[in-house]
């Protein structure tokens, strides 16, 4: 029912029109439809008003009636009016849907899309020239509906749908073929659908449309891009005599006089290039694309807004493209646009992201940004109203600071610490999660700093915020907060570490190490690794609160299956193993005694890993535990030997990785440096013989550190010589003021010594 609208005049006029729409006389209806169409065309406010008055269902009803009334066989005056009514009502519905989401919703709710399709486009109508007007109107309207995200998904898998689509594409009317192309652009999402369309041969028709009218060309370019997007398989099948023609056709269109067409052609080529890098590798075409897009930035409208996004998709992750873009002054050109000020948010966002991509790998781009003072504009954007712009500004900063050289230059140069740090810290509290994550990314790079920026960050309350975020329910935020903390702690001074640890607490760290997300576990372990590095008293942190952190580390190592986690965990233990005796023993405890059901130590698994980084980390732990300068090392060596770890290390003497090989070599030298007269004996408790000590002893196993196990046959004569050796070694030990001891596992008859 009619509701009040903003303008009283509108209400009167609106109600009047609606009233006449309900008239029984076709002439009146037709006139009312025309008036309605003229009222709403290009006028969002009027569309909204009429929407509220219930215009859409009313018009849909009229369309439905008219379609039923059509008698194709007849061609008299009456039919003409009916046709006109169909045309006008289709036009009105299409207009409501044009660029107006609420209108699209209303049209779809009224089932008008199906009505139009059935009424205007199916069956005999498209075949009759006299009905071309109807067909065209229907096609135009449907196209407008299909431009909306809310339009229904077209089911390509249904054979009749595919046939209908092909009939649309093959139609001569540019509106009808344009509709076919629109449907593809809108609905084709999966690689299966892409393949179906490709196999159905639509490309041939789309290519011929490239030579058609402006509408056909643009629609075709969008469709071609949609079919190829991210689908290397389809692109690779795109071979044969047709390929060259289509590609060169599109390349020509890159020079078209209409900006939008140039943009669409560029996007099409980019899609093909990204899906299958063997196409469009020529330096000439690469440069042409880059220059084209940089020029399109000059367009003041939507094309200019979108050009930077297209530029990003062209150069993202591709160092060669970034280099080419740099050589044609890409950074400068982007900066010039930034400087214009009062940018539309979409444009601002696009340019910032384009700069982020430019600086993602190349030092020359970062330096250029620094010298152009781009950063000042980027930092200003951190406070923009649009969250997309704030996010993009953070990504730009992150990209630019992804270089230790750059970070050093920042420190050395005049760009102040607080200028960057203050607005970034503020964003940690942003209402948008995406912005928080982006800010965390930039912060985590910027805090890798060996000067004062760290202390500025801490002073501004950055640590408190990071710790808070590390408790977030959102795992992405937890992860990125931890990354920033990990970097912050890297080589931090004692005081700084202490402040961070007080805020974090041992229990939080322990729970983060056991976080449900593996990547969070990894970062937590990396944080602890950095925490216990540095001055030797830093190792104590891991023992805080009854050693819950160390226990958590040990536990994760035993259950982890991801190499990255295992590597960090091993380095934690390896670092702790460079501490005092008690620290080393605690590590031994984690590695050896805690294994469930006397299973082998996890370190053996790591020593055998395919990942050389993990093997390296494991060998370092062993090296640190058996460091020659430590008094308890020989005892630890014996235990490691018993656990089978030493022999595993020995087996790695020809490791394919140079670093591992060198560490193993050092380890073996270290093992051999221990007194080799150290013998570990196990005596059988059932020594019942009372003869001379040597023959009483039944040696089950004689082991020498550094040599293989030697099982002695008690009945053989070996016994005596081994016993002599043993006695000799014992004497030798007594002489030496050595702290090394021989270990006994069972009772030894007292008179044997």
């Amino acid at each position, binding site marked *: 029912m009619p509701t009040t609208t903003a303008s009283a005049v509108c209400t009167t006029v609106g109600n009047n029109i609606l009233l006449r729409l309900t008239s029984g006389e076709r002439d009146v209806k037709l006139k009312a439809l025309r008036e309605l169409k003229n009222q709403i065309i290009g006028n969002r406010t009027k569309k909204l008003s009429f929407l509220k008055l219930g215009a859409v269902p009313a018009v849909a009803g009229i369309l439905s009636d008219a379609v039923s009334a059509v008698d194709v066989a007849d061609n008299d005056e009456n039919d003409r009016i009916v046709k006109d009514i169909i045309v006008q009502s289709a036009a009105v519905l299409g207009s409501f849907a044009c660029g107006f989401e609420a209108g699209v919703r209303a049209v779809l709710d009224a089932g008008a899309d199906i009505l139009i399709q059935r009424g205007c486009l199916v069956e005999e109508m498209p075949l009759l020239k006299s009905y071309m007007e109807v067909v065209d109107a229907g096609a135009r309207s449907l196209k407008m509906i299909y431009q909306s995200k809310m339009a229904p998904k077209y089911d390509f898998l249904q054979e009749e749908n595919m046939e209908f689509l092909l009939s649309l594409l093959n139609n001569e009317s540019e509106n009808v073929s344009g509709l076919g192309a629109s449907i593809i652009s809108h609905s084709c999402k999966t690689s299966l659908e892409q393949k179906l369309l490709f196999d159905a041969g639509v490309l041939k028709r789309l290519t011929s449309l490239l030579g058609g009218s402006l509408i056909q060309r643009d629609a075709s370019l969008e469709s071609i891009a949609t079919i190829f997007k991210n689908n290397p398989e389809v692109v690779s099948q795109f071979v044969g005599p047709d390929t060259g023609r289509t590609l060169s056709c599109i390349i020509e269109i890159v020079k078209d006089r209409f900006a939008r067409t140039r943009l669409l052609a560029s996007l099409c080529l980019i899609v093909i290039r990204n899906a299958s890098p063997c196409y469009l590798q020529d330096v000439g075409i690469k440069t042409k694309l880059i220059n084209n897009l940089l020029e399109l930035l000059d367009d003041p409208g939507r094309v200019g807004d979108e050009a930077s996004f297209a530029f*990003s998709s062209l150069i993202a992750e591709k160092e060669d493209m970034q280099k080419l873009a740099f050589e044609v002054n890409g950074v400068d050109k982007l900066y010039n646009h930034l400087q214009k000020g009062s940018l539309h948010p979409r444009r601002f966002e696009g340019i910032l992201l384009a700069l982020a991509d430019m600086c993602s790998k190349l030092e020359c781009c970062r330096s250029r940004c620094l010298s152009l003072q781009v950063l000042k504009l980027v930092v200003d954007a951190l406070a923009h109203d649009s969250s997309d712009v704030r996010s993009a500004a953070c*990504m730009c900063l992150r990209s630019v600071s992804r270089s230790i*050289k750059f970070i050093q230059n920042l420190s050395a140069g005049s760009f102040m610490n607080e200028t960057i740090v203050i607005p970034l810290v503020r964003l940690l509290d942003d209402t948008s999660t*995406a912005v928080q994550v982006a800010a965390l990314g930039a912060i985590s790079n910027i805090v*890798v700093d060996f000067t004062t920026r760290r202390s500025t960050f801490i002073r501004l309350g950055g640590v408190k915020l990071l710790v808070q975020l590390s408790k977030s329910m959102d795992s992405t935020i937890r992860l990125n907060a931890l990354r920033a903390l990990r970097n912050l702690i*890297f080589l931090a001074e004692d005081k700084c570490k202490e402040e961070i640890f007080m805020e974090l607490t041992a229990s939080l760290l322990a729970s983060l190490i056991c976080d449900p997300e593996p990547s969070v576990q990894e970062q937590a372990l990396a944080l602890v690794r950095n925490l216990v590095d540095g001055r030797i008293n830093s190792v104590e942190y891991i023992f805080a609160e009854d050693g819950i952190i160390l226990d958590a580390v040990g536990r994760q190592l035993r259950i982890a299956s991801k190499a990255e986690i295992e590597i960090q965990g091993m380095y934690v233990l390896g670092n702790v193993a*460079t501490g005092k005796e008690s620290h080393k023993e605690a590590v031994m405890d984690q590695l050896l005694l805690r294994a469930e059901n006397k299973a082998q130590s996890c370190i053996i698994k790591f020593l055998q890993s395919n990942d050389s980084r993990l093997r*390296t980390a494991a060998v370092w732990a062993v090296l*640190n535990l058996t460091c020659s300068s430590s008094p308890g090392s020989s005892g630890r060596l014996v235990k490691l030997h018993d656990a089978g770890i030493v022999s595993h290390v020995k087996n790695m003497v020809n490791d394919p990785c140079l670093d591992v090989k060198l560490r193993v070599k050092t380890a073996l030298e270290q093992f051999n440096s221990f007194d080799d007269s150290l013998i570990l004996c196990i005596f059988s408790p059932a020594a019942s013989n009372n003869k001379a000590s040597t023959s009483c002893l039944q040696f089950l196993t004689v082991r020498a550190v550094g040599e293989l196990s030697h099982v002695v046959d008690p009945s053989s004569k070996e016994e005596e010589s081994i016993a002599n050796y043993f006695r000799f070694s014992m004497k030798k030990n007594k002489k030496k003021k050595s702290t090394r001891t021989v270990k006994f596992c069972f009772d030894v008859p007292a008179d044997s010594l």
Partner: protein
Amino acid sequence: MPVRVAESSAPSQVSGAHSEESSPPICSLLTVGQAFSGTQNVSNLQKEEAWRVNVRIQGCDLEHGYLCGTMEALNVPMADTPVVTFWEGEIVDAKNYTFYTGKWEATPEDDIRHWTKFPSFAPLLSRVEADGGKSLDLSNYPYIFMRWKEQYFVNVGTDCGLTIAGFYYVCFSCSDGSINGFYYDPNSSPFQKLELKCANEGRSGFSFSSYELQ
């Protein structure tokens, strides 16, 4: 149009994250955070001096053959405090950099003259003379050759009386992390030697930390 969504979760090489962990280092002793200490002998007309030197690696980008860090010189006569400089290194990996410097007023003859002072260079000499060492596969060689160039003073002014105009030819031993270097500066005495050992800073064993640039 592609819309950028904030990158999330796990770091990966594909995403471009410059991770210290993702590609294994050539040698774990030449990684960020590692410290080295030793001496540089400084000769001038009057006498021989030796300064204590501490070096720390701060950045490492193997893909681009890049390294950087700080160098701290202690008991420098002209200065009241230790003098700290920031240096950048080029790793001779036959991909990014060769044995020929090609800048900093060092001729190929100067290059060869300096590299041959390292015993570990001897097996490579003939190949280097032939093609600059481009055909060498140094990935399994237990020594890493670099050039280190100090870029600026971190804690003193340029009027401190010290020069950083030259650069070092450096040889790093992967097995024990020891570093030998020769300073080259056409305006200074030749072959001033830098000798450093891997420092474990009071610990028994070697401790490693890391950071990750996203």
